[in-house]
């Protein structure tokens, strides 16, 4: 019985410790990971797409589709990286507006829009530069929509 109590206590203690651990390192890690996804995956692929749209990089069906598919792979992972307590001001470098948690369903729906729009742009690549351009520009409207509502931009 005493042994059981001890185990129970330890477990409770561990659980408590784990919660504490979440509020320290894991929050920072979540912010780091989601920034990575935007900065190192979404933005560079969008940049490549943009360069093809502007004609500074030759349009290439396969490369354009691949870039858009990479973006399309992000949203599902992305929305899991917003634990409570990671809003702008609570964790260094976070640009997440508190509005994300006020209406998390809307945030998720906007992420889903990006997933759909980038998949559409990937499909449009096969139909040539003109179709791709239209689909690509539509996709970037979703970037803007989400940032306007949910992102608190840090200084330039």
């Amino acid at each position, binding site marked *: 019985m005493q042994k059981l109590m001890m185990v129970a206590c330890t477990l409770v203690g561990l659980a408590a410790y784990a919660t504490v651990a979440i509020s320290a390192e894991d929050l920072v890690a979540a912010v780091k990971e989601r920034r990575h996804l935007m900065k190192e995956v979404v933005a560079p692929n969008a940049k490549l797409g943009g360069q093809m749209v*502007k004609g500074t990089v030759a349009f290439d069906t396969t490369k354009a589709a691949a870039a858009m598919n990479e973006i399309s792979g992000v949203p599902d992972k992305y929305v899991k990286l917003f634990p409570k307590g990671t809003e702008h001001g609570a964790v260094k*470098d976070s640009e997440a507006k508190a509005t994300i948690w006020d209406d998390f369903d809307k945030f998720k729906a906007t992420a889903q829009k990006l997933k759909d729009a980038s998949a559409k742009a990937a499909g449009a690549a096969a139909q040539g530069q003109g179709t791709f351009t239209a689909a690509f520009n539509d996709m970037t409207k979703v*970037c*803007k929509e989400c940032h306007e509502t949910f992102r608190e*931009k840090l200084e*330039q």
Partner: protein
Amino acid sequence: MRRALLALLVVAVAGAVVFYVLTIPRTVPASELPAHKPDLANGEYMFTAGGCAECHATPEKKCNDPKTQDKHVLSGGRCLKTPFGVFNVPNISPDKEAGIGNWSTLDFVNALKRGIAPGGEHLYPAFPYTSYQRMTYADLIDLKAYLDTLPASKNVPPPHELGFPFNIRRGLGLWQLLYVDGKDFVPDPKQSAELNRGAYLVMGPGHCAECHSSRYLWGGIIKSEEFAGARNPEGKGTVPNITPSDDGIGDWSLNDISYLLETGNTPDFDVIGESMAAVQENMAKLTAADRDAIAAFIKALPARPDAVPKSEQKKKDAKDEDAAPGGDTKTGGSKEPDDGSDY
């Protein structure tokens, strides 16, 4: 003693007379207005290029909400925080009491070209007539005619909240002496038609310099630092330098600038935000030729270093951040290289 008092009185009276003369509202005489049949489509175009709705339409929820309700109902109510106090933007819908429904075209032209409202009231330059004064009479006549077609609103926004001496409108006459001459933009015959069109849109209706330039304490734009960036009056951070220098956007091509104005995407695919988002949405409604003209003019600006050193602003913001509750400083592991690129 009596003599000294008398002298003082003379100086005071002389000062008052000088002040009175210097601050007499300077207006456009009716004879200067050309006969011009209003073109409503161009009026709407100028309304868009001028971003009138960004300030005069009612904000979505709070008075400083960047987003607005119906852009065609100019019922006012936005609040603008400035170093001089808070301005509550007035109703300029065609309502005869609450708005400007009783204003003649000449009244309207005087407000935009001279910063003077009917009755000789001086207007505050929080209304960027310092740029609008460069617009042509024809464009202003069209704009007025277009505004007359919009819905009237009875909304009466609260008065401005300004301390002494800024609450004395008459004093603005001195300021206007320095910064307002109502002269049309003068095209440079040595430059292409495209560049001149771009210059007109940027310096006139687009009022780009108003946000992108640093100012003296009294609010005048520092000409030698025009477009070289400024502190953000609305919050922290800076409004970027858009001259073609290393600090500015020297590495952007013409196409990059046009594309930003069309879509809101920077070359690094960060998405433009803050107050520029609304400006960009307006630019997206202009013709592609006009966006290219704006890009050509921006690209041809003199290259200037940042007027507000980024490092200085960062330090200030960091201080504000530390002072804020919950500011977390011990996690500073992920220092960004200061490449100033895609923040």
